[in-house]
Structure formats: structure tokens, C-alpha cells
């Protein structure tokens, strides 16, 4: 546990007036407030630090204690005991932002020096919103293809969530109210789940469209015919046009990935043909190819 220089955090010196503190805090809070920096962990950490610094320095009692014992925080407990006899009351009023602060957001240093959360400063009942939680959920492409439910365990609580078909790799969804509990009747934080969709199939996904390859033997490519390919909807028969070129691509409308939160709508499936040249030809076959190559086209 390290000593935290609250003056340095707010960029002020030790002679700063309450007005200077408020002004420095406001300036930094505007820069790092979580509302203005969504999903930015660094900003959140900075905001927690400046919030904590403000919590201490804007309260005359806490500031006095910090100035006296801050460097030597290990004696804070003795200080606390001595204070109990004095029965001093505090008229401290609210100064901390409620945006993202919660009981668990104070540093170990703060907890050691002030014996707990921000609520220990006086009679105030500030409502703090709970912490937001972040989680990552791993899915396979086939899981993401269908709307399904999963039960997650977050902070020893089971949460059943419905994952809509078509969720994108890297997409984050918010489950309101399933983050950390609010303090003093404040609202709970939210749970943010980021999806990591792995693809182990031969079918590639790009947005709502799918891409796959199909092998064609030379004879079907030249003469046309029918092949069967695997799609996420199952096996599909395809008619191959005569004289199909290697690398040519066809589109199967509506055979792609489900569109997120748009039931019944699908992207397209693109199939690229790879023509396989026959190998291990017999002498007879080689002769026929030679004959073919000498014929006029």
C-alpha cells in the first residue's frame, strides 16, 4: 500500500484554499468523469483518485488528519481511538460526484487512514451508484447463430441472460442494474458483457454475411451439374452452371448470419468455387485431354 499524495493528484499545493480545491477537482473531473469517458479504464482509475483526493481535501476534518498523519498513515488507527473520546461532529456536506463512485472505489490507503468508505465522514447520506462490472463471454460462431440463454455467475450471483442471434465478435452489451450494489439507496451499477466469438468452422463471417469455398471437379466446372455444400442452416444443393471459372463467386441470398435484433432477417452467403484439376490420370485419359487440347475452340 503506497502513500497517495492527494495534493499532487489534484495539482495543487498544500496552502490551497477550499475554492482552489473545488476548482482543481472540477477541472479534472470534467476530464476524467466516466460519463465522458465510457469504457475507459484509465480514465475511471484517474477519476477515482481525484474523487478520493477531493473527498479528503474538501473536508476540513479529513484534510487536517491527512496533513497530520498522511505520510505516516500507519498511526491513523491510534489517532482514531483518541478521536473517539473527543466526540467531534462533522458538518461536512456532499462534494463527491455520484457518477461512478461506490464504497469499493477507495484506495487501501484511504481505508486505512479514514477507516472505511466515504460514508465515515459525517452524517451525510450520499447516494452512490454501484460499480460497473465488466465480463467477457466466449461463444462459438454456432452459439452466436441462434438466440439462446446462458446463466452467468457474477459476484456469486447467477444471472440468466438472453443472447440475441447475430451478436458480433467484440460487441458489448449492457445488463442494467447487475453491477455492484449502490450505497445508501443509490442505484446498482451495470454489467457490461463483451463477446468473444470464435470461429472454428470453414465458413468465415463478416458482419451479417458468410463466406465459404466449394471444390468443383473439372468436369462439373466445364459441363455443369449439382453439388452439395455445408451451410450454418444445414446442407444445401447448388446447381453449377456449365463453364464455371475457378475463383468465381455466387451469392445465396438470406443464407448468411442472422441480423442482430432483427428477427427473421439474414445476411447472404457467398460461395467461391475452387476447381480441382484431376490427378493420377490414366494413359487413356491423358490421350483424351491431348485430343481435346488439339481441337479447335
Amino acid at each position, binding site marked *: 500500500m503506497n502513500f497517495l499524495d492527494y495534493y499532487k493528484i489534484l495539482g495543487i499545493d498544500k496552502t490551497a484554499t477550499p475554492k482552489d480545491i473545488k476548482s482543481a477537482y472540477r477541472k479534472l473531473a470534467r476530464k476524467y*468523469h466516466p460519463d*465522458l469517458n465510457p469504457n475507459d479504464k484509465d480514465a475511471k482509475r484517474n477519476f477515482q483518485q481525484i474523487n478520493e483526493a477531493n473527498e479528503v481535501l474538501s473536508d476540513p476534518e479529513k484534510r487536517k488528519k491527512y496533513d497530520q498523519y498522511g505520510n505516516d498513515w500507519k498511526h491513523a488507527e491510534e489517532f482514531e481511538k483518541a478521536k473517539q473520546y473527543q466526540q467531534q461532529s462533522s458538518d461536512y456536506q456532499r462534494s463527491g460526484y455520484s*457518477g461512478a463512485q461506490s464504497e469499493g472505489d477507495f484506495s487501501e490507503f484511504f481505508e486505512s487512514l479514514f477507516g472505511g468508505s466515504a460514508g465515515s465522514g459525517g452524517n451525510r447520506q450520499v447516494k452512490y451508484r454501484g460499480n460497473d462490472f465488466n465480463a467477457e463471454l466466449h461463444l462459438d460462431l454456432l452459439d452466436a447463430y441462434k438466440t439462446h440463454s446462458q446463466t452467468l455467475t457474477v459476484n456469486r450471483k447467477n444471472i440468466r441472460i438472453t443472447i440475441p442471434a447475430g451478436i458480433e*465478435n467484440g*460487441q458489448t452489451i449492457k445488463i442494467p442494474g447487475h453491477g455492484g450494489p449502490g450505497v445508501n439507496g443509490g442505484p446498482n451499477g451495470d454489467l457490461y458483457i463483451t463477446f468473444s466469438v470464435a470461429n472454428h468452422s470453414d465458413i*468465415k463471417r463478416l458482419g451479417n454475411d458468410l463466406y465459404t469455398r466449394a471444390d468443383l471437379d473439372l468436369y462439373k466446372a466445364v459441363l455443369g451439374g449439382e453439388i452439395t455444400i455445408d451451410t450454418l442452416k444445414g446442407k444445401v444443393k447448388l446447381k453449377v452452371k456449365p463453364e464455371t471459372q475457378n475463383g468465381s463467386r455466387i451469392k445465396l441470398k438470406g443464407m448468411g448470419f442472422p441480423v442482430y435484433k432483427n428477427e427473421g432477417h439474414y445476411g447472404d452467403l457467398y460461395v467461391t468455387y475452387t476447381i480441382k484439376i484431376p490427378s493420377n490420370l490414366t494413359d487413356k485419359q491423358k490421350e483424351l485431354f491431348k485430343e481435346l487440347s488439339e481441337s479447335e475452340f
Partner: protein
Amino acid sequence: MRTMQTEYLIAVDEFCANNNIEISFISSLEQNGLIEVITIQETGFIGAGQLQQLEKFIRLYYELDINLEGIETITHLLRRIDLMQDEIILLKNRLRLYETEL
């Protein structure tokens, strides 16, 4: 087939009383197109879906001292960030598609 959706509404005056804010603040947000107020029998209501956004506006205005013009600008920029983040996800996935082909 059309389905009816239930939207929960909160009376503006009740919301303001509970959150200790002025009704004029809500009116200003509405005038700036930042929230939508539904009027039923001369009483203003806010859809529950807007609550989180509204609470954010309250924090920006009352706690960070950001005026309405600032809130409007920030909201616009945050929307742009959202769109850009969606685009980054799409581009990353597109890149992944080509990387796996190599």
C-alpha cells in the same frame, strides 16, 4: 402482425421532486432535443428508457457545471465515438478474416 409494447412513463414533476432538480431543466433538455417529453392530459412524462441518459445529463449539468450547449456537444461526440467503435469492431473482424486466410 403488429405487437403492442408497454412503455413505462415517469411524471416529470415527480422525477424532479425526487431528484431535487428544477422542471425548467427538463424543459430545456427537451427544447434542445436531448430528451423527449410526452404530454398526457397536460402532464409531462418521460419514458423509462430515457432515464439513464437523463441521469447522465443531470450529473453533467449539476455536478460538472457543464451548460446545455456543452451537454449537447458532448452527447453528439459520444454518439460519434459509439459509431466509430462499432466500425472498429467491424474492421477488426474484417482484418481477422484476411489474417486467417494467410
